[in-house]
């Protein structure tokens, strides 16, 4: 599998409008001019308890201390996301990149056409809508949260 051509720092973040729940939509601009963290992941219901979304759920208070908003994005539908979020007690939105399938992942350069899922790509976007940090992990490797925290800290250092 060749590496995906994910968008690099300095690139304007493509806008999107995706379902967060069966009756609610979220746009990039809704994330409020503060740093936004986009965490693309392959699928809901991965069979480990310490999975990527569960980890970010635990680290959420720290992301919020940086004023950052986190969203998870996969090609799963809104009903799958709703059940997954309830089962894992997630406190951040999961967006459904469902129709047209994977369009947002594709715009960010992290859609695996052969798999029909998004790669594990992370983006930190500043308040002006510019990507400040991006990272792609192999599908089987949960990237953890340290890269995101480093990016948020360097963003803060630059704006102070």
């Amino acid at each position, binding site marked *: 599998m060749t590496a995906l051509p994910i968008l690099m720092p300095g690139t304007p973040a493509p806008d999107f409008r995706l379902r967060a729940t069966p009756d609610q939509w979220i746009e990039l601009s809704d994330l409020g001019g503060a740093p936004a963290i986009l965490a693309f992941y392959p699928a809901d219901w991965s069979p480990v308890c*310490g999975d990527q979304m569960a980890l970010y759920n635990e680290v959420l208070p720290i992301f919020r201390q940086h004023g950052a908003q986190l969203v998870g994005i996969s090609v799963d539908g809104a009903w799958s996301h709703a059940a997954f979020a309830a089962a894992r007690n997630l406190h951040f939105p999961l967006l459904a990149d469902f129709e047209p399938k994977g369009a947002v992942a594709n715009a960010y350069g992290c859609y695996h056409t052969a798999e029909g899922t998004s790669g594990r790509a992370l983006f930190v976007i500043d308040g002006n809508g510019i990507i400040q940090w991006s990272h792609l992990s192999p599908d089987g490797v949960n990237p953890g949260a340290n890269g995101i925290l480093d990016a948020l800290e360097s963003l803060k250092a630059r704006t102070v």
Partner: protein
Amino acid sequence: MSQLRPEVSADDHSVGPVDAPITLVEFGDYECPHCGRAYPVVKQLQATLGDSLRFVFRNFPLSEIHPHASAAAQAAEAAGESGSDPFWAMHDLLYEHQRHLDTHSLLRYAETAGADPVAVQHALDAGSYVERVNTDFMSGVRSGVNGTPTFFINGVRYNGDWSDVETFLADLTAARTSP
């Protein structure tokens, strides 16, 4: 490559010689079934490697999915107030009884571990070890812990298969620092 930060220090709970050629750090959650599976693996590594291994445990409770994990971690820390032996005895009891981590059970384990259950109860009520557990958790986040258990061998995150003793042992031996 993810590096352990901060490095192992005297503040950590550890077994084995301080200058052992292999230091293995586990970030664990007492309610996590995968950590429960790793527990006998670590015991076997300790038995095989003897004084060549220093084992360190840091707390990484995933509280949102494991409702008893944080209290269990705090109870182990509180038991550690009575000494290193009660801490490790408590650590073992928690992993051996992962399905029974209610407060009553935690206090019973504390007593069995040789700690003062009344002091442990007070520490749980007062949240005396919340910060300590959180410090461990944040060190895990900053070190690139991405689930539980996550191991570090001589400061480097281990991405191999910890569930297979032979593989784990071979990788530990390969990481041994030269004397």
